[in-house]
């Protein structure tokens, strides 16, 4: 093979020109852009092998000097890097299982296909996929559940700590088609949201209200966590939005619980501010003048 001819460049071409020629051909011939076109696939492989031979200056120099070993090296490098199928080959074919990734669109085509085919849908041969809802707490701390499949079989499902919605757990050979052939069974996890906790990576977050007095004087507050309530020390003079950390109380073994403080004042309809308190606060403010809007560069 003459790699210059395969890539359509002159032997005097610069490395940049070779790279551009390769990219241009790869975009045109890539098998995932031409699924099922064997001629494109063959040419794409030739273009790749040619680029392995002259795409890098060092390899090109060896080729130009007629080193046949270098050509073999390039060919085997290409074969090694291209082991395995192209993506479109894993996404189903006649009588074959559908790819996991394209299967995620399952159920979204009802309107489209009922309008075209009048609801005549054929069952497909595929691995079985089920959905399972998991409590937020179990998704963070991990759990083990037992479920019953439609065929009556019971299955133990180990939910790893930190699992996220959309994760699929595979159970090899646990499903059977009509001919009793074994297929894999997948369980897709859906995590139910928590009314008070949110997740940020391996950390979980909760907003905890504190009074104005607690925000000034500090103190200990009781904070709910997924492993029971804990006492957390609030330092004096904290602000709304400030976060305290409860170490080790996020995703088990990986994260923390972050406690976002929110200063909440009493309801003005039911609480009055007496003169003694009002004057005392004014005096304190006079001794410690502070304008948060100046700090925020609003002036």
């Amino acid at each position, binding site marked *: 093979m003459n790699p210059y001819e395969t890539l359509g460049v002159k032997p005097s071409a610069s490395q940049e020109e070779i790279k551009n020629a390769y990219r241009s051909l*790869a975009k045109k011939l890539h098998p*995932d852009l031409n699924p099922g076109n064997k001629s494109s696939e063959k040419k794409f492989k030739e273009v790749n092998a040619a680029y392995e031979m002259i795409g890098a200056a060092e390899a090109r120099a060896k080729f130009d000097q007629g080193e046949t070993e270098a050509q073999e090296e390039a060919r085997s490098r290409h074969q090694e890097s291209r*082991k*395995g199928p192209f993506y479109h*080959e*894993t*996404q189903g074919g006649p009588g074959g299982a559908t790819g996991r990734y394209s299967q995620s*669109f*399952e159920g979204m085509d009802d309107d489209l296909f009922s309008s075209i085919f009048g609801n005549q849908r054929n069952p497909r041969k595929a691995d079985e996929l089920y959905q399972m809802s998991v409590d937020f707490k179990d998704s963070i701390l991990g759990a083990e559940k037992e479920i019953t499949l439609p065929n009556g079989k019971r299955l133990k499902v180990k939910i790893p700590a930190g699992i996220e919605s959309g994760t699929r757990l595979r159970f090899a050979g646990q499903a059977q088609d009509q001919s009793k052939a074994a297929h894999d069974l997948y369980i897709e996890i859906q995590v139910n949201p928590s009314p008070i906790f949110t997740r940020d990576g391996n950390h979980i977050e909760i907003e905890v209200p504190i009074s104005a007095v607690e925000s000034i004087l500090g103190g200990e507050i009781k904070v709910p966590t997924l492993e029971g309530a804990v006492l957390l020390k609030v330092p004096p003079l904290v602000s709304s939005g400030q976060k305290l950390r409860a170490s080790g109380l996020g995703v088990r073994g990986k994260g923390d619980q972050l406690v976002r403080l929110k200063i909440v004042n009493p309801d003005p309809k039911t609480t009055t501010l007496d003169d003694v308190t009002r004057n005392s606060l004014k005096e304190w403010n006079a001794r410690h003048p502070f304008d948060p809007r100046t700090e925020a560069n609003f002036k």
Partner: protein
Amino acid sequence: MITKMHSISIVEISKRTGVSEETLSNYIERNWISPTIENGHERKFDEEDLARIQLILDLTRDFGVNDESIPIILHLVDQIHFLRNRFRDHLA
């Protein structure tokens, strides 16, 4: 017809694709690939994951596609395969 090959470890996938384990973890975090989890914590890949990683590499290295565009392309590619399979089933 491709025979599914299950249970390839992240170390093996890294070796076969030349992509570091850290970058593979990044692909997982971005939901570009979704390996299955076995024994409660082990991330296991199959031929489909391997081919998808190779496609991502072709897109980023050879086609000059940037990271923001990758999930959009993958989404469209998956949608096309889904529709192709549906048509095939209906015509069968």
